[in-house]
């Protein structure tokens, strides 16, 4: 990462240029009045980000459970960490709050498949016809997590979250490769759901409870929610410190 001074030089857009680029200052009729309200009053001010590892920051009241039982949460926390582990690049899914993210998502419309077509009749279809099950995501998680636990207990006589990392990987691989015999759900289908929701928890805006302190974005050099790249789009690669959506409400 470049030092702070260099980062400030690389602020992708100044207020003046921003106004110039959008044409906002030209007095034309702008359809939609949001442009003005989006301009940060002081774009140079860095976003208030708590230093990682700093002594007890304000409590994160978001970190409680809306859906999972404690046992389910422990499995998800351990499994997501194996999918996206802590390494020399930075934190893993657990520290990023991916399991809280998944819990919160399952509590809402995504968990109920609320905006998807769930009307009968249900038939087993061809692979190219997509998901045809009657189960909703929260039910799939209930079953999938129970089966992960059952598989761990029968193979290792231990709970999944108590297994060594290599053993946890072996369990997840067995699901990924459909080596587990399940009747109600597809083991690989569940694994894929777990994998994709882990990545969501790692990289979604922190407002959803994962990607804690934007650390997922920092590792990936993704700048998050920026108003403009008009001044860097034709330039070579630039590292830009990330900003989250919360910034919109704090000016």
């Amino acid at each position, binding site marked *: 990462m470049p030092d702070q001074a260099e980062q400030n030089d690389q602020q992708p*857009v100044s207020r003046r240029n921003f106004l110039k680029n*959008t*044409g906002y200052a030209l007095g*034309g*009729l*702008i*359809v*939609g*009045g*949001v*442009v003005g*309200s989006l301009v940060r009053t002081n774009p140079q001010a860095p976003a208030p980000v708590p230093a990682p590892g700093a002594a007890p920051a304000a409590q994160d009241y978001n970190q409680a459970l809306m859906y999972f039982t404690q046992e389910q949460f422990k499995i998800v926390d351990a499994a997501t960490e*194996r*999918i*996206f*582990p802590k*390494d020399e*690049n930075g934190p*893993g899914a657990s520290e990023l709050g991916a399991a809280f993210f998944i819990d919160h998502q399952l509590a809402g419309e995504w968990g109920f*498949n609320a*905006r*998807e*077509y*769930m*009307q009968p*009749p249900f*038939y087993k*279809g*061809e*692979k*190219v*016809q*997509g*998901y*045809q099950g009657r189960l909703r995501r929260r039910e799939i998680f209930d079953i999938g997590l129970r089966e992960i636990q059952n598989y761990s207990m029968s193979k290792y006589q231990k709970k999944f979250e108590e297994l060594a990392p290599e053993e946890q990987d072996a369990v997840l691989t067995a699901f*990924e490769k459909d080596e587990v015999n399940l009747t109600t759900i597809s083991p690989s289908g569940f694994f894929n759901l777990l*994998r994709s929701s882990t990545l*969501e928890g790692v*990289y*979604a*805006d922190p*407002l*959803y409870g994962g990607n804690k302190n934007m650390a997922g974005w920092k590792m*990936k*050099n*993704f700048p*998050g*929610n*920026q*108003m*403009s*790249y*008009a001044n*860097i*789009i034709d*330039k*070579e*690669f630039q590292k830009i410190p990330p900003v989250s*959506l919360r910034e*919109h409400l704090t000016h």
Partner: protein
Amino acid sequence: MAKKLPKVDVVVIGVGWGGGIIASELTKQGLHVVGLERGKERKTEDYYMVHDELRYALRYELMQDLSKETITFRSNEKIRALPMRQYGSFLLGDNLGGAGVHWNGHTFRFLPYDFQIRTKTLERYGKNKIPADMTIQDWGITYDELEPYYDKFEKTCGISGEENPLGGKRSDKYPTPPMKMSPQLVMFRDVTKKMNLHPYALPSANLSEPYTNPDGISRAACQYCGFCERFGCEYGAKADPVVTVIPVALKTGKFELRTHSNVRRILHSGSKATGVLYIDTTTGEEIEQPADIVMLTSYVFNNVRLLLMSKLGKPYDAASGTGVIGKNYAYQVLKGNATGFFENKEFNIFAGAGALAMCLDDYNGDNFDHTDLKFIHGANISISNFGLRPIQNNPVPKGKPGWGKDFKAASLKYYNRTLSVGAQGACMPFRHHYLDLDPTYKDSFGDPLIRLTFDFEDQDRELARFQVSRCEEIMKEMGADTVVANKELGPYDIVPYQSTHNTGGVIMGADPATSAVNHYLQMWDAENVFVVGASAFPHNSGYNPTGTVGALAYRAAEGVIKYSKQGGMLV
């Protein structure tokens, strides 16, 4: 009993690009237009929190609620069609502006070849070039005839671009200059020029500079924020119906926009429509809106579905090849990309605009010789700079796992070190690719869902193999350390996202026996019904469809104005 409202001049069903253009043009001429939009209102202020990949790109904030209505799909007539329960292959727009809000802004003109595809293919290659069940036909209009309407749509949007060296003749240049070029686009341009190809900046509806259009609408320039496709534009820089044509219609005082109004039937008697029947979805009330002229301007699937449910026009019968409504469904062939991994080069992959791209047409249409090839038509080849977001973009080279420690390290490393050159293949219609009403599955009103019968053919597989190889050559020349190119198209699969370029079903042409609408998009079987949209395409070209949808909408508007004065069939 439905509540019956006073008669109006024109009723418009669905207010997106088609409905918005029709409304603005007709109200300018003094016609009284009622726009029925089943979704809610939309405005630029809605996008205050738009830089949210999860909400918009993965939870489909701007898309139709599939729990209320979806489509059913089968690969062929031998298997049972099943509902598309979740989004995948394409995304259906919703609310005011429709799919015109969540698009990227690629605004092409089709090639002169497209409009006379059957004639030109026969001329150059003979009868045997067209497989027996490939139902290509001329469009009943030529490029030259449509050119003024392309020009008009481009000026409404303020398209930023430069002339396509291999495209049809233009009466005027693009209204705004090309967008800024990123280093990777410059690489593509330089390399392809050296290969004796003809690169040009992709015509973009994301404004390169502030622009005031002929209707007096001013819009701001694009900020390259990287949140475009699947998102609305918080600057109004991306042309969409809500920031261009709809306010023009409203300003006349002649356009009455009714949101939450879901049309279920077009009412008709004899060879004329008398109005429409719709539901106010906030109250459940059934309302009849009589009108002199009915404009069907919803998305492809609903244009077909409403005609079939209303028993208007002759339904297509694949067994006999007769009838027209539902015929010639086509799509886009674009699963094939060449992906290049760069060990020592990083790009601002997070930045971009929906239509920021360089492209070329050397392998599109009939710009190259097909004599020894087992397909017709081709693809626009491009490198895009959309702005790639982190949840959906985790590229890893072949051989790396999809999760775990190595995945994490590789996906972090290559996120900013990966480029892709892609081909957007044309899709030819076939006798057994069509839309009809599903016998089993219903929407939330109890009406049948539309059923899609479609698969890729040898034509598509051959085209994909050829085009991906061209992409691979370019990517190698661009200096990628590793190039991965998947040449096998496979069967059409509704699960992975491919393209929201669904076309056909209410196709245009010169012959009432083989087309549903004439070159003003006026229905052969109902003179006061015009059906606007990509549903009119007899096949889909190797381009994004919106430019042609816009041009045809302006053409149709002219037809409606003519019809409102003289009546009768315009052709």
